[in-house]
C-alpha cells in the first residue's frame, strides 16, 4: 500500500460524478457549504465520514445491508472489549475512565462502511481508493490489510522474509472477500464476541471437505488438528503492547507453536491448533492507570491462530528423510511447552501447553 499525500486523500475522479452515489450531490451526504469561496467556510458543518451515522446516511438506501451492522466486530469492536473485560475482571461499561480510554485509543480501529468501500481506514490516514468511487468489494491491500497487515497481510502476501505467501493468493489470486463474505463482515452473527465465535466465519472445511480422506494424514487427524497445524508456516508473534501512544514495544518474532485448543467449540472442536502470542503484558494499560491487570491470567497469552500462509507442503508435511511419518511433529519443537513461557505467563497458559 503506497502512502498518499494529503491532497491525494480527497481528490475526486470525474467518473464518480456519473455514478449512482455521485449523482446524489456532495452535500446530500457531506453537508458543508457549496457556495463558499474558501476552504474553511466550505467545510463548515462538514460531515467528513457520513457512514459514521450509518443508519441515517447509508441505511436510508441500504437498509437491508446495514440492519445488522451493530453486530459486526468491525463496528462494535467487541473482540477487544471482551478481552479487556476478561483481564480486568469486571464489566467496563460502568467504568467511565476505561470507556473513555477505550474510545480514544482502541476504537480508532472501528471501521465504518466508507472505510471499507470508499477510502482506506482512518487508522492509516484514510484517502480515496478510487477517487471516491464506491467499491462493492473492499480492496485486499488498501482496505483489509491496511489494518490486518502486520500479521495476516504479511503472511498472506509472503512479506515475512524467507516465508512464501499463501497458496490461495499466489496461485489463485483470491482476495480476502473470496473467503470472508459480505454477510459475515456486515454482522450477520449476533452473538459473535470475536472472529472465531462468528457463526459465519469461514473455515477451511467449508471448501475442502472432500479432502477428509484424501491421504493417510487426513484420515488420521481430520477434525483432531486444525488444518493450519500441518499446512501453515511460521508466523509473526508479539509479546507486549502499550497504550498511551507508545504502540508495540519489543521486537516481534517469527515462530510456529502448536498447543491445546484454547477455544474449543462445536464449530472448532479441534484438539490441537497453532497458537500465536498476542501483544499483551501485565502493564499494557499502565497509561490508563492500570499498572497490573488484575485478571491477567484469565486468558492465555498464546491465542488460537489461523496463520494465513497456507501451503500444501510445509516443514510439517514434508517428511522426506524422517524416521517415521510423525517425526516432524510429535514431541517436536513446534509444541508449546512450559519452557516457552515467560515466568509471569505460566498460569495463563497452563491449560494449553503440551508435555513432551
Amino acid at each position, binding site marked *: 500500500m503506497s502512502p498518499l499525500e494529503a491532497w491525494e486523500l480527497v481528490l475526486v475522479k470525474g467518473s464518480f460524478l456519473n455514478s449512482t452515489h455521485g*449523482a446524489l450531490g*456532495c452535500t446530500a451526504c457531506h453537508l458543508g457549504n457549496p457556495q463558499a469561496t474558501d476552504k474553511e467556510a466550505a467545510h463548515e458543518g462538514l460531515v467528513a465520514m457520513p457512514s459514521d451515522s450509518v443508519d441515517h446516511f447509508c441505511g436510508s438506501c441500504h437498509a437491508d445491508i446495514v440492519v445488522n451492522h451493530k453486530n459486526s466486530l468491525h463496528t462494535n469492536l467487541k473482540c477487544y472489549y471482551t478481552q479487556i473485560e476478561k483481564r480486568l475482571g469486571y464489566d467496563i461499561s460502568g467504568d467511565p475512565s476505561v470507556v473513555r480510554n477505550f474510545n480514544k485509543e482502541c476504537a480508532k480501529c472501528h471501521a465504518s462502511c466508507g472505510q471499507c468501500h470508499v477510502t482506506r481506514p482512518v487508522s492509516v490516514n484514510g484517502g480515496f481508493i478510487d477517487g471516491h468511487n464506491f467499491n462493492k468489494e473492499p480492496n485486499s491491500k488498501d482496505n483489509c490489510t491496511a489494518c490486518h497487515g502486520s500479521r495476516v497481510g504479511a503472511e498472506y502476501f509472503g512479506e515475512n522474509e524467507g516465508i512464501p505467501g499463501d497458496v490461495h493468493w499466489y496461485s489463485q489470486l483470491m482476495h480476502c472477500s473470496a473467503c470472508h463474505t459480505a454477510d459475515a463482515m456486515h454482522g450477520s452473527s449476533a452473538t459473535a464476541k470475536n472472529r472465531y465465535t462468528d457463526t459465519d466465519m469461514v473455515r477451511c472445511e467449508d471448501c475442502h471437505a472432500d479432502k477428509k480422506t484424501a491421504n493417510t494424514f487426513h484420515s488420521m487427524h481430520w477434525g483432531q488438528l486444525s488444518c493450519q497445524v500441518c499446512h501453515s508456516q511460521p508466523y509473526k508473534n508479539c509479546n507486549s503492547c502499550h497504550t498511551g501512544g507508545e504502540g508495540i514495544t519489543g521486537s516481534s518474532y517469527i515462530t510456529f507453536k502448536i498447543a491445546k485448543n484454547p477455544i474449543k467449540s462445536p464449530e472448532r472442536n479441534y484438539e490441537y491448533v497453532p497458537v500465536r502470542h498476542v501483544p499483551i503484558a501485565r502493564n499494557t494499560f499502565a497509561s490508563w492507570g492500570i499498572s497490573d491487570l488484575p485478571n491477567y491470567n484469565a486468558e492465555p497469552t498464546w491465542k488460537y491462530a489461523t496463520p494465513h500462509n497456507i501451503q500444501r507442503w510445509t516443514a510439517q508435511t514434508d517428511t522426506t528423510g524422517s524416521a517415521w511419518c510423525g517425526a516432524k511433529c510429535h514431541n517436536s519443537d513446534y509444541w508449546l511447552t512450559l519452557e516457552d513461557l515467560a515466568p509471569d505467563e505460566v498460569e495463563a497458559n497452563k491449560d494449553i501447553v503440551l508435555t513432551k
Partner: protein
Amino acid sequence: MSKKHVLVLLALLAVTVLILAQCTEKYPAATKELNLASGNSCVNCHLDAEKLKKVATPLPPSNSDAGEG
C-alpha cells in the same frame, strides 16, 4: 356499484398510494450540473489536484507498526 365494490376499490387505491409513496426518490435528482457550473462548488476544488495541493493540510506522521493481526 355495491358497497362491497366501493370498499374494494378504496382498498386498492390505498395500496397504490402506499406503493407510490415508497418508490419516491429519497434524494433530489442529480445536482452535478449545478456543482460543475458553479465556480466555488465542492467539485471544482476536489476534482482539481493543483487546487488541492495549495490548500491541503500536511498529514501527521503515521505509525507504520499500527494494525491488528
